[in-house]
């Protein structure tokens, strides 16, 4: 599997809903079109919030997985 290039990483571990999304929105604004953000979150709500947010905002959720209780998301900024 090809490795996705990560342009920026956001650690939202310990942040409660909706702060992971709020911080993601800020971090995505700072990326160029097509840039990829890696988001780390521990709030279980992020599992449904992140796909809903990417759908609403037109950004792309490339993949997500859980790793030792941490939810890891790769999001590509719309371009």
């Amino acid at each position, binding site marked *: 599997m090809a490795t996705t290039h990560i342009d920026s990483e956001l650690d939202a571990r310990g*942040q*409660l*809903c*909706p*702060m992971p*999304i*709020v911080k*993601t*929105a800020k971090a995505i604004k700072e990326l160029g079109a097509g840039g990829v953000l890696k988001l780390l979150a521990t709030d279980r709500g992020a599992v449904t*919030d992140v796909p809903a*947010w990417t759908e*609403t*905002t037109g950004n792309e959720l490339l993949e997500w997985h859980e790793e030792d209780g941490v939810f890891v998301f790769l999001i590509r900024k719309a371009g």
Partner: protein
Amino acid sequence: MPDQEKLVIMVTHGPEEPELATIPFVMAGAAVASDVDVVMGFQGDGCRLVQKGVAETVTAPEFAPLAGLLDAVREFGGTLLVCAPCVKSRGIEEELVDGAEICAAARFVAEITSATSTLVY
């Protein structure tokens, strides 16, 4: 931007009910982060939440602290409208957070009738 979605969120619970005070800010935070135009309307005890220094005292269990949510709503350009008689009766007209705007019923009606949806808490 005519295509911009707009959500009006009416807040009527104050710091004595931290969960019901916080939930509208959670919805507002998620909305502004999703590029939705947000107008929060504070009536009754809800207006206490935009009195300087009060948001910092409100944290509901398992919710993000209210002060950070309020900051997020303001940072993303959300509008904070506060009921004129509600702040007058509480003597807090001069103590509101920066950006909070005192207004009357017709402004609320105008915001609500031009919104995509309105939530009332």
